[in-house]
């Protein structure tokens, strides 16, 4: 999987693409931690529109990142998950902890 970014006035958007499973999760976590350290954003947006596949490894990653962002005093949410990741998010119930927006507000 790949992560590309956009930054504007305190908001860092991380665009996920490809497939996120246990094999990919560790590298993705490292990338996100590096990005958080580099930008120190107020808001972190995980844009999942380009993510074709995600399993529960992705859920663990999202929970870990949101914990990191909270520790930094920031906010995090998910935007535009494609269908399969959306079903995994719904089944896991993390949308009760982390907001999921279906249309980009930016």
């Amino acid at each position, binding site marked *: 999987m790949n992560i590309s970014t956009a930054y504007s006035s305190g908001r860092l958007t991380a665009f996920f693409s490809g*497939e996120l*499973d*246990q*094999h990919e*999760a*560790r590298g993705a*976590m490292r990338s996100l931690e590096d990005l958080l350290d580099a930008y120190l954003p107020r808001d972190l947006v995980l844009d999942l529109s380009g993510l074709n*596949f995600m*399993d*529960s*490894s992705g*859920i*663990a990653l999202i*929970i*870990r990142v949101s914990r990191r962002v909270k520790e930094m005093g920031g906010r995090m949410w998910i935007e535009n998950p494609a*269908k*399969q990741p959306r*079903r*995994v998010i719904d*089944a*896991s*119930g993390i949308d009760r902890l982390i907001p999921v927006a279906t249309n980009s507000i930016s």
Partner: protein
Amino acid sequence: MNAKNYIKLEFPSKSSNEAFARTAAAAFAAQLDPTLEEIGDIKTAVSEAVTNCIVHAYPETVGKVRMRLRILDGDVLEIAVQDWGRGIADIRKAREPLFTTGGEERSGMGFTIMESFMDKLRVRSTPGKGTTVTMLRSILSREKTR
């Protein structure tokens, strides 16, 4: 129950095989003419089962994983994922949402997701001998739903 078709695949418990296993399962299931959502559900359940073998059955070593897929009467897809690893002492506990022995890299949602995406999930395990996870999912082909 008679199988109309089947495949058996055996591979080492390397994480790079997670994507291979779910893609192979989706390719086999394609003959049932599943919807995109059904394909996504099959890939997800296989990914969870195979990841469990890699992370939990063989935490320190690389061991053998066997995946068997069968098409049963009534367009039911059966997925069985077997390992000869550490085994699960308390299956009921392991199936509880959010329970994990895998630390913060795991969500504890693997079995919950397999259960919600499949029609049936059976887990058989003997500590020290291994685990077999068997899942059933009936496929409503696109042709029939038209």
